[in-house]
């Protein structure tokens, strides 16, 4: 076994193990912390795939943004940590159905898609290529700009809602 494979198994185990703990922990705060550990595992996998930029973005957005938001929500919600409140409500079967459907679609895609491996080594300056592709008219400039406008609208909307009076 090469070093890469060992690391892949470690990061994969961390990701999956932490993800399993997220759904089984009774304590919501602990579940959120395990979710963060899972994010770290995914970031490690990105590093192994020679995509350090994606790894940093993963930490930045998911840990620094989304996880913090989840923690804030847990801390500011009343009765969130009360052990007497049931862990599921009456819609649990609906959620399970949706989760199962998503899992099926993802599994089917992973198993049936022909994953084309790029020829040769990964270019070392992938971050430059990524930057160029994002602003290239023949590349991803349209989705990039649409996302920016979406975020801008969300920002202005948040300011409008938070405004006093």
């Amino acid at each position: 076994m090469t070093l890469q494979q060992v690391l892949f198994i470690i990061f994969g185990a961390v990701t999956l193990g932490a993800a399993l703990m997220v759904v089984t922990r009774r304590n919501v705060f602990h579940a959120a912390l395990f979710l963060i550990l899972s994010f770290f595992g995914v970031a490690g996998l990105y590093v192994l795939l020679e995509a350090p930029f994606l790894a940093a973005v993963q930490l930045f957005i998911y840990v620094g943004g989304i996880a913090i938001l989840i923690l804030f929500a847990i801390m500011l919600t009343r009765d969130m940590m009360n052990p007497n409140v049931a862990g599921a409500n009456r819609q649990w079967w609906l959620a399970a159905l949706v989760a199962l459907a998503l899992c099926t679609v993802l599994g089917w895609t992973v198993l049936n898609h022909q994953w084309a491996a790029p020829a040769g080594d990964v270019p070392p300056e992938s971050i430059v290529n990524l930057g160029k592709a994002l602003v290239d008219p023949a590349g991803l400039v349209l989705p990039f700009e649409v996302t920016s406008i979406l975020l801008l609208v969300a920002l202005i909307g948040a300011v409008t809602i938070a405004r006093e009076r």
Partner: protein
Amino acid sequence: MEFFNDFIANVGPWLQGLLEGIGLPEVWARVIVMGVGGIGLALIPLVAVIFLIWAARKLIARMQDRIGPNNSGPYPGPYALFQTFADAIKMLTKEDVIPTAADRWVFNIAPIVILTVAVLIWAVIPVGKDMIGADLNIGIFYVLSLGSGGMIALMMAGWGSNNKYALLGALRAVANMVSYEVPQILSVLTVVMVAGSFSMQEITKAQTVPFLFVIPVTALLFFVSSLAEVGRQPYDLVEADSEIVAGYFVEYSGMKFGQFYLSEFMNNFAISVITATLFLGGWKGPFVDSVPILGSLWLLLKSLLVFFVLLWLWGTMPRLRIDQMLNFNWKFLTPVALVNVCVVALVGKAVPPDADVWLRVGALLGANVLLALAVLVVLAAAGRLARRRDETRQAAQVEEASPA
């Protein structure tokens, strides 16, 4: 002598040769060399902090017209130089108290996480030409994304303690960090646009003229928002001892408290080093080409200069309230940072990097000075407007109160 001129770059291959000489396989020799290098790198901030704590106590005392640790009385060592060692021994021998209602796991892991994050930053800091832990091509972005790990540690400490002061402190700290991240990232973005790379080594090499004299507005923005990120005065509402005792680490005792204290100082020193690397030219200096080890000395001197400014603010600034802190960020720093990014992008495009260095520096500096002047004019106008509105309101109140 040749060996010591480039000591840090040479010691790795030398150690590797030595280990292979006694019959270790090449892979193991490499693993050992890298491990030793990593531990050595992690020891830099830890050792530096011992003396920085002493310097901070001494200098702040002088600024506040006190004497501070000195030769007289119970302080150990000349000029109380070993006071920090005495403090460390005291902390290590103290009882470790865990509150009954605390979330034991979360409570115990938090100080480990926070110290890990503080040490990890040092992997990408170039301490000299070819002297860097790992020259990641995402360098400065790696430093920024580690900040989110620090935030999680603060939340863990605040929540795990099961103490309302700790929770309030953690909420303040995270609100502080999340908001000041915006101008910080925008100012780093400006640096990256001018330097053309994320890598700390490339950013250092790009500074023919230190960036402080090319994009001064950005340097100020970065320094101010970094101060807020580490919760240093005037942003110490995070651990305001007169309001919420000590904030998120109020329940910690012994060496766990020591870990928070250490990581705080390490972060302070880290932002000084990063500011020195991004804006003061890092290890660049005279004679650095012939004697590379001098680069570390230049970097240290520049970092200490920035650290002195930090101490200066620490010793003299009053504390901001949370609304003032958020207003200052969202209504002043963030808009200025956004305009600054646009200005630098436009000027950088108009005078491309392959143009004459001095032309480019002049254009960027001119644009930045104009921007600074414009900001001051807008601020003055806004201040005048607010004052006039206040006066009219007061006049109206007086009129209302006195029946004519």
